[in-house]
């Protein structure tokens, strides 16, 4: 069935996203990784919706909500990153170590 | 007089708390007013306790009187159930009395940093906790009062306690004694009571297994004792044992006691010794044994062993002390060992011994701590090597110290005798089913303990009271016992003699209740 390919693609994208989020040092790349994760979720939802053929297109509705909120989230994220870049001339996540234990 | 019936106990419990709240409203500067007010409150509480004792029907001491049972936290089935029987009556009166004496004593004796208002407020909260524990007949209520005692004592030790620096093993820097003692006291007790609470909850859920409503009610749980058996009962008893044994304290959970007693301000030590230590052993008699009699029988030998170790250990440790107050603190470990030995026999004689031993220890050790405080107040040291010739410098105080030490070592005719004697008597013939030879061995070791007790008490007397004053004190004027001290101590002295000569003063109330307890707990099971 065609479904499996979508699910595998989503799983791969999701893993890439998580990996990127954990190891990437540049905050912008971290943000992109987040987008990757959310995209994986959307693919999953749309594909599974096609499987279930729900009357209200539940999966697609959810995907639309996720896209909307992800946009807002990225806005917030970019604002924070911009602020940090302005204050310390770098957007490197590793350098954020003022507070430890 | 039905009003008295239903309200007397609640008043005894909560009057001090109300008094504390009112005292909060009195300006801090008006120390005299605060003192007079707390004295008034505590005296009224004592009068109420005496009235309750007078109206107590000694013919029916086995049952609960002055009972109140109203819903409190209905969602969890906890009730405000209070009442007294012959077992709790003497302890309740003792508690009310000691609080009054402490207020009187502290009239002129303040440890740094003074602040009488805060101190007296804490003392009143403490009184509520102590009185409440002795009348509570609901496990949740009991738990609350049992814990309520901790906070005021923690602050008393921590704020007014001993400020000398001490090297504590395991700490890099020297620590002030009071800080170490306060937290140690608290952590130990809290650790025990956390497990005690788990035990209570387990009892609660198990009590519903007979198809009835689950309950926290102590008399009800006693009636449903047959539901608790096997491993379950063994574990629950163990959990409660942890809670109570820390409070008693039994060896090896006693290590907080010498520190707390030594560091606490005089009045704090008196309250700790006279009342707080009784909460644990009282809980054994009130809760652990009647609800889980069969398991208590399994545990009895273990308790007896720990009790005997406590007796011997306490006595030997006393001989190693150089500080008068610490010596008295260790002597408490020994005396509470006798109390627990009495309880471990699970007989009428033994449990009676435990109660009279508790009362006697409250009177005697309370007085000893008062004396230690006053000695420290005069000499500014408690080191026995520096003291000496006290009898010459302060004849009255020396005399009282001699008298109290004699009472403490169990001189016949004074209060301390009965507890030790009867505990040993009880272990000669423990409850059928318990190994007689085992308990007779315990009895012999306990008897050796009494000799050791006599030994260290006399040694202490010789060091502190007898001989010539050292050159350090020669030629100095010391104020002998002042009138506040006299007022606080005289009732204790009178009671020590009275209980010693006429033990029925206590036993008259307790015997029927104890017989009833042992009957229902053990006869029915066919012991």
């Amino acid at each position, binding site marked *: 069935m065609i479904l499996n390919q979508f699910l595998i693609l989503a799983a791969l994208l999701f893993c890439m996203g998580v990996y990127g989020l954990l190891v990437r040092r540049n905050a912008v790349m971290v943000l992109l990784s987040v987008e990757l994760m959310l995209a994986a979720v959307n693919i999953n939802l749309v594909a599974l919706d096609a499987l279930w053929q729900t009357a209200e297109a539940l999966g697609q509705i959810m995907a639309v909500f996720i896209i909307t909120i992800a946009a807002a989230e990225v806005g917030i994220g970019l604002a924070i990153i911009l602020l940090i870049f302005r204050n310390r001339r770098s957007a490197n996540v590793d350098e954020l170590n003022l507070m430890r234990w | 007089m039905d009003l008295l019936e239903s309200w007397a106990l609640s008043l005894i419990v909560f009057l001090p708390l109300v008094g504390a709240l009112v005292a909060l409203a009195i300006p801090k500067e008006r120390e005299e007013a605060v003192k007079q007010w707390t004295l008034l409150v505590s005296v009224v509480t004592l009068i109420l306790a005496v009235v309750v004792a007078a109206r107590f029907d000694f013919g029916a001491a086995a049952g609960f009187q002055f009972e109140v049972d109203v819903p409190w936290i209905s969602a969890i089935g906890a009730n405000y159930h209070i009442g007294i029987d012959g077992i709790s009556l003497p302890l309740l009166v003792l508690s009310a009395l000691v609080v009054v004496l402490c207020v009187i004593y502290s009239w002129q004796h303040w440890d740094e940093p003074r602040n009488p208002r805060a101190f007296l407020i804490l003392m009143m909260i403490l009184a509520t906790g102590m009185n409440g524990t002795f009348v509570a007949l609901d496990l949740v209520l009991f738990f609350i009062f049992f814990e309520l005692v901790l906070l005021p004592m923690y602050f008393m030790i921590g704020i007014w306690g001993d400020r000398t620096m001490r090297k504590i093993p395991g700490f890099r820097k020297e620590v002030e004694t009071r800080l170490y003692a306060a937290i140690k006291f608290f952590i130990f007790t809290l650790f025990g009571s956390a*497990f005690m609470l788990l035990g209570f909850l387990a009892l609660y859920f198990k009590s519903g297994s007979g198809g009835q409503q689950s309950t926290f009610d102590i008399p009800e749980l006693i009636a449903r004792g047959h539901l608790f058996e096997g491993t379950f009962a063994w574990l629950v008893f163990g959990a409660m044992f942890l809670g109570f044994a820390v409070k008693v304290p039994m060896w090896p959970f006693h290590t907080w006691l010498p520190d707390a007693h030594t560091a606490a301000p005089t009045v704090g030590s008196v309250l700790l010794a006279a009342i707080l230590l009784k909460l644990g052993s009282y809980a054994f008699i009130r809760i652990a044994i009647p609800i889980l009699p069969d398991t208590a029988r399994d545990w009895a030998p273990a308790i007896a062993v720990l009790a005997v170790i406590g007796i011997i250990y306490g006595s030997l440790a006393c001989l190693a002390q150089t500080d008068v107050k610490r010596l008295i603190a260790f002597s408490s470990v020994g005396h509470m060992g006798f109390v627990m030995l009495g309880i471990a026999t699970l007989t009428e004689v033994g449990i009676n011994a435990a109660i009279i031993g508790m009362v006697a220890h409250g009177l005697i050790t309370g007085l000893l701590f008062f004396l230690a405080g006053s000695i420290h107040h005069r000499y500014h040291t408690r080191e026995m090597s520096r003291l000496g010739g006290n009898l010459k410098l302060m004849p009255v105080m020396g005399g009282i110290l001699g008298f109290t030490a004699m009472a403490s070592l169990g001189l016949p005719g004074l209060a301390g005798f009965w507890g030790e004697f009867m505990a040993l008597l009880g272990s000669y013939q423990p409850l059928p089913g318990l190994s007689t030879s085992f308990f007779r061995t315990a009895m012999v070791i306990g008897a050796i303990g009494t000799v050791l007790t006599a030994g260290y008490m006399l040694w202490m007397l010789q060091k502190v009271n007898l001989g010539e004053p050292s050159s350090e004190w020669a030629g100095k004027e010391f104020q002998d016992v002042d009138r506040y001290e006299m007022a606080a101590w005289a009732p204790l002295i009178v009671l020590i003699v009275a209980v010693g000569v006429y033990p029925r003063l206590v036993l008259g109330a307790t015997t029927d209740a104890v017989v009833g307890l042992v009957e229902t707990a053990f006869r029915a099971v066919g012991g």
Partner: protein
Amino acid sequence: MTRIDWLAIAPEVVVAAALLVVLAVDLFLPRERKYWVAALAVVGTTLAMVPVILMAVSGDNYSMFGGSYVVDDFALVLKGVFLVAGYLVLLISVSYIESDRYYQGEYYLLLLSSLLGSMVLTSARDLVVLFVALELTTGPLFLLAGWRKGDLRSNEASLKFFIIGVLSTGLMLYGMSLLFGLTGELSFEGIREAISTGGMASEPVLGLAVLLILVGFGFKVSAVPFHFWAPDTYQGSPPPVTAYLSVSSKLAGFVAMLAVIYLALPAATDFWGPALWLMAAVSMTVANLSALRQSHLIRLLAYSSVAQAGFMLVPFAGGAIAENGLSEGLGATVIYLVIYAVMNLGAFAVVIAGGRRIGSYEIADWRGLGSYSPRLGVMLAVFFLSLAGLPPLAGWFAKFVMFRAVLISTGPAGVWLAVIAAVNAVVAFYYYARVVKSAWFDQAPDEIPEDTETGPTGPLSLAMGIALVVVLVVGVFPGLATFFGDAAAALVP
């Protein structure tokens, strides 16, 4: 079909209206009159209580949008709690925010948005509403954490919180998409029925979905091992925001978790039971041990809040083990949440008040507080010891119901968790007591910090007063708190 019951959504409408008014009014107010914004926000939250109380009195249930949005006892009780918590946080914030004279309007706007999100959350009965509400709750908090724009620590707090927040959202969403794939449903009820009719309770994919969702919630409630952002974010954020984070945002995570677990996944106990058991045990232990070494008050409170999250998870684990444990567990968690919210906000109020006077959050600098400011000293002792769970302060009852909920099953798993919790309760006491010790037992510094507060102190004192009264009264008459638990427990199907 799509009839909208205006009374049922009135609380949210009021808060949303207050939010818009705040935004508009802020534009027209001159700098020195900005405190009117705060007053408006306070009035808004107070007004929103009215419909909540009306509905609670009438006792009706409302269901809207095809059952996605439900106002029942559970929702009402928690809406009330969120409103009170929000109200207290607003009071706590006033003097702090006012003293900086800096983006006041935005502060209240964001706070109200987050409050709105958590109120919607209580009514969410399908995954879409739940997700949107949860994001509305946390989104503004990312910005609030970085509210002190010039402060590097605040920046750092904000970014760490953001990254962890979106990571958790991603994991949770992936889990939700799997759940949707398995059942073809988004509503909790549909998912529950699909799982039971399809016999999918032990499907491995369900396990994966449940675990991913739990990981997501774990971040939100800051349970170990998903807690490491909490201390940094708490320390870096402005203290009133931290107060809000540690209460409302944690509460929101728990509410979402309660709804999903008890409404959608009650059959999957085999998956979430052990996972939450482990999370509870590890959270308590690790957080308590870490808290022992903290010297910074707010970091201490951060670890304390992680540990408290562990305690709150205990009833869940109990619910999975015992037969009738679900409703017991739900009631216990809600009671714990309610009491925790009040005492923790009280503790933060004292810390903020003291911090403004002392100018430091190092515990050592607070020595002798009781001697020069007995009022703050007493409050500090009351709230911290209540957090430690000492009777007769309200915290004891929270601990009590927690133990009760897990001991309802007499199996070894429940007993062991209870024992771990008991030991942890004692350990926790040690670090709470250290703060009390510093304030009461230690000698005051030679230079006693002067009271230099210039801003309005009334609101902060009011917040402390309210919390104090609640902590004392609930401690003595815990029956008042069981009302919340009983109302909430009705949720369990």
